[in-house]
């Protein structure tokens, strides 16, 4: 079994705004494209009857029925949450699955991965996918090959999903630093852990959708009783305002 670091200097992670995510799947294919070019994410039967491939980030949508209000739809991006108490790491028999001490990113050392799948079984979030062609486990790397990558312009050193998100619903930063932009967002918007009862202490946070419903403007008062005055009366009153 594999040990977790006692603590990490940083807790790099994502803050995902469920109030803003429209479910467009941009993050899904930007992730697929970047990581396919890097670590390889295979597709099986891509033009066939039952295509399936490896994706490190998927977006699902859920219907929410609300008492006395119209039903809602919430779109929910899901990827590795880079947990502090990552069960996918401790369950790994070879040490392939590990959490970095310097930044808290959970990674798979593909050279050591035997493809046993225990980590996927242990992860309560379904955030790991076995690559059928390579026989090793794949997961979100938080684009570790972007965020420190000096061959990229500085502004591009963020995960591909964050860079591409059209509604700016995805934010990247250090959640161990209370002054970071992401920590501030979490504080301001009541960001929460996904399934905290699992005890995994996820780094990634979700910002909840804001309350929905009709506005609060005061009702409009008619200028006058048009039935009584006719249009002529309305016109006099209306144009008298000029």
């Amino acid at each position, binding site marked *: 079994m594999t040990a977790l670091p006692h603590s990490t200097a940083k807790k790099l992670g994502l803050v995902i*705004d469920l109030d*803003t995510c*429209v*479910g*467009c*799947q*941009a993050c*899904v*294919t*930007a992730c*697929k*494209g970047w990581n396919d*070019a890097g670590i390889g994410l295979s*597709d099986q*039967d*891509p*033009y*066939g*009857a039952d295509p399936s*491939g490896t994706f490190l980030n998927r977006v699902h*949508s859920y*219907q929410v*029925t609300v008492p006395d209000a*119209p*039903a*809602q*739809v*919430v*779109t929910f991006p899901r990827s590795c949450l880079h947990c502090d108490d990552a069960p996918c790491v401790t369950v790994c028999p070879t040490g392939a699955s*590990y959490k970095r*001490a310097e930044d808290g990113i959970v990674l798979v*050392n593909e*050279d*050591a991965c035997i493809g046993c799948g225990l980590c996927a079984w242990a992860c309560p979030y379904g955030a790991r996918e076995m690559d059928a062609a390579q026989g090793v486990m794949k997961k979100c790397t938080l684009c570790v*090959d972007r*965020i*420190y*990558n*000096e061959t990229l312009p500085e502004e591009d050193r963020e995960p*591909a999903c964050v*860079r*591409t998100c*059209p*509604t*700016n619903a995805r934010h990247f930063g250090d959640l161990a630093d209370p002054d970071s932009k992401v920590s501030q967002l979490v504080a301001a918007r009541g960001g929460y852990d996904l399934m905290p009862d699992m005890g995994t202490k996820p780094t990634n946070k979700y910002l909840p959708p804001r309350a*929905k*419903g*009709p*506005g609060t*403007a*005061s*009702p*409009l*008062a008619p*200028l006058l009783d048009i039935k009584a005055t006719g*249009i002529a009366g*309305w*016109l006099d009153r209306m*144009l008298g305002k*000029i």
Partner: protein
Amino acid sequence: MNQPRVETQREVGDEVRQTTCYMCACRCGINVHMKSGKVAYIEGNRDHPINKGVLCAKGASGIMQVTAPSRLSAPLRRVGPRGSGAFEVISWEEALSTAVSWMKPLRETAPEKLAFFTGRDQSQSLTGWWAQNFGTPNYAAHGGFCSVNMAAGGIYTIGGAFWEFGQPDWERTKLFVMFGVAEDHDSNPIKIGIGKLKARGARVISVNPVRTGYSAVADDWIGITPGTDGLLILSLIHCLLEAGKVDLDYLAQWTNAPLLVNEAEGAEKGLFVKNAESQPFVIDRRSGHPAPWDGKGVQPDLGAEWQGNRTVFRHMAEEYLTPEYAPEAVASRCGVTPSRIRALAAELAEVAFDQAITLDQPWTDFRGNEHADMPGRPVSFHAMRGISAHSNGFQTARALHLLQIILGSLETPGGYRLKPPYPKPIEAHPTPHFVTTPGKPLTGPHLGYVRSPDDLCLLPDGSPARIDKAFSWENPFSAHGLMHMVIPNAHAGDPYRIDTLFLYMANMSWNSSMNSTRVMEMLTEQKDGEYVIPRIIYSDAYASEMVAYADLILPDTTYLERHDCISLLDRPISEPDAAGDAIRWPVLEPDREVRCFQSVLLDLGARLGLPGMVNEDGSPKFKDYADYIVNHQRRPGVGPLMGFRGNGEAQGRGAPNPEQMERYIENGAFYQAHVPAEASFFKPWNAAYQDWAVKLGLYESPQPYLFNIWSEPLRRFQLAAEGFGPRQPPDHLRDRLKQAMHPLPIWYAPFGDEDAAFGYPVHALTQRPMDHYHSWGSQNAWLRQIKGHNYLYLPTKIWEVQGFAEGDWARVSSRAGTIVVPVAHMAALNENTVWTWNAIGKRKGAWALDEGAPEATTGFLLNHLISELLPDRNGVRLSNSDPVTGQAAWFDQRVRVERVAAEDHVRGTVEPMFEKLPDPPREGGGPIRNGGQNSSKNFAESLRKLLRLPEGTR
């Protein structure tokens, strides 16, 4: 603990090539990372005005589009029966000479026998110019089945429209309301905008029967009944007028509200009262006397009555203050309670009037009046196909513009802003041209804006001059043509027969036609040993369903292998603060026998000797499309691209610059000309904007105008229907014209509503998802994994009443047909509406998908339910379109939904199921089917090429 070393300095590629995306019509800038000559990664271009660095799901998946096995690989000639998919590979020389041999005799004898229609494209200024020089009246792009109501309703009212004509002032708007905005139009700009609003805490409201995507994140959702948006909007106008929450100053200065409407019985009734110079005028409040509408210092009297003639404002008040528009009167029809309608009106008024903003920016209007600042009303709107794809969509679009107008928000800070070349009044647009002379070009462009019955495209006997009957009494303002009627009309010989149908990127035998089943029959029907539509030439990059129905295939390149211009003459990439245009260029060279369609078109034009496409000695004027983009001049000094003209420094106007294409590539494949700060709002009336637009070449002289609350062109058609004027409509259309061509925005029930009385009570809609575009998405290896299945979504009421359960199927019937399809429950849906994703369903054998692909087995289209014709009325069947514009009324559709027991229908196969299309020769290895009739000389060579697996296929 020893951590493994992680590669963090990976180089994405060895080169970045910047071009323009074409995974949908959005035109985002992309960085294509190349590695060893192949595409390694695609991301958004941060400097690009459209997407500012972001990219959607489709854009990043473009890498799979350039290796798709469905790519056509060489020109093809049909050798078996049409629809059989039997083709032989031919050379480009053979293909082009065949096309010329079909087209040339037509041009010399009867140019109208060639009908040229293009689907998804961004090269209408070239294709239209080509067709004009060929001399056929039968040309249009796909706007007739897309959103011409949105375009025409806007241009006739405000000289601009929603979609790419403008956008909300994302930086300042405080309340943003969407009507009928599905997930696709537009893509990244609206997502970026919503993100900005959310970050600022601005409020977003969606009016839409379906709550997905943008509607899902909206702060409030109004699940309206389809086709009733116009009625809801007019009720909001009623509430605002009733409460006096109207911007009177805005109406008086910038709209035709103070013009006088002629009340005298006769041929002028309802037109504006004119002075001796034939100019409309206003009554000046200072003097009580007539004054010029554009006079300096004039204070127009909105309430004037002069010699018995009342202002437009008074007509408006009389129309909209009637109780028929009260919330209580419209609520049940709209499916929205009176209190919610009143609450929305109150919210609009509060933000527009109590939260008004002011920009400290002096400006001067076209009358010469100086303004110290720019007052703004921070309410903005966007609308798309949900309101426009109805038979009342033109008037609904007008109604929404009227709502923006009375709030005084259009073109003000915080409101909806137009993007160059808009604002542009109808007076600055051409009228349609159609008169054919064998061997000669048309005298002007095909498509335009009709001002009166005089501009209709009618033959001397009164019959429609165009095959699609555009600009006829059936749909006088059909500014984009009626592509959905071309095949049915040509098949019926109504108004006449054609010889050659020439289509580009239009999947007419599947998802781009109404009544697809019947259209397939029309394409294959024979008479006297010949196909009823004798010849079909088709250009597409992929093995779409339409390929099998063509006689000659001209294979196009993918978007990364071609030149294109996204031009101010066409559909540019402007922003409210900048005119913008862009290019595509081949970041990859094609590895198969395909050619950029636009280059092929220019080649054909040269072979046909078309004016403008040949030199004096008859040699081709342009080497290819890139040569045309740089060197063609539409007017002296004005060409397809505005940037880097002349010596490289000229903008807008200037001589062609041979370095222009290179300069665009260096600049990230786009160019912007920025609007000066004093010209940035109030553009239709802003002298600085008008001068800037002339300087840039958008117009030849300033074009200030008033917003048309009251539309004279509409009224002229009503007058004709009432019996006035020399050009008279057929009697069976008089009542319809009187209703639809009302000079004020009005609402009438969509024509499809009549089907409710015949047992089809439920509304049926489609929408495109954000991650697919038409048919392209579901052949994309990544995107089809995201959305490879479609279901008919049923609201809770229907789901529960019929006892539906998960995994169930339903029979869905309409007047025109029946489908049997998988269903799913959706609670966030109007209770009388069902819907599905558009164009997930594929025909077996198409798009290089396995015949067991879910798209082909359980994927389905609603198109089979939608007739292209309305029911018979006294022996006449009119098109299922808006009576004003001819826009295909897809969303008028009514159906009946019935649960189908498993015993009665084997799960796993939708109905109707069509015979598998034979696989045409294509890059992914489609077998050559020699029909046994012909064998090409170069067959063996082609076969060798075809069997080579494409590089990069996995």
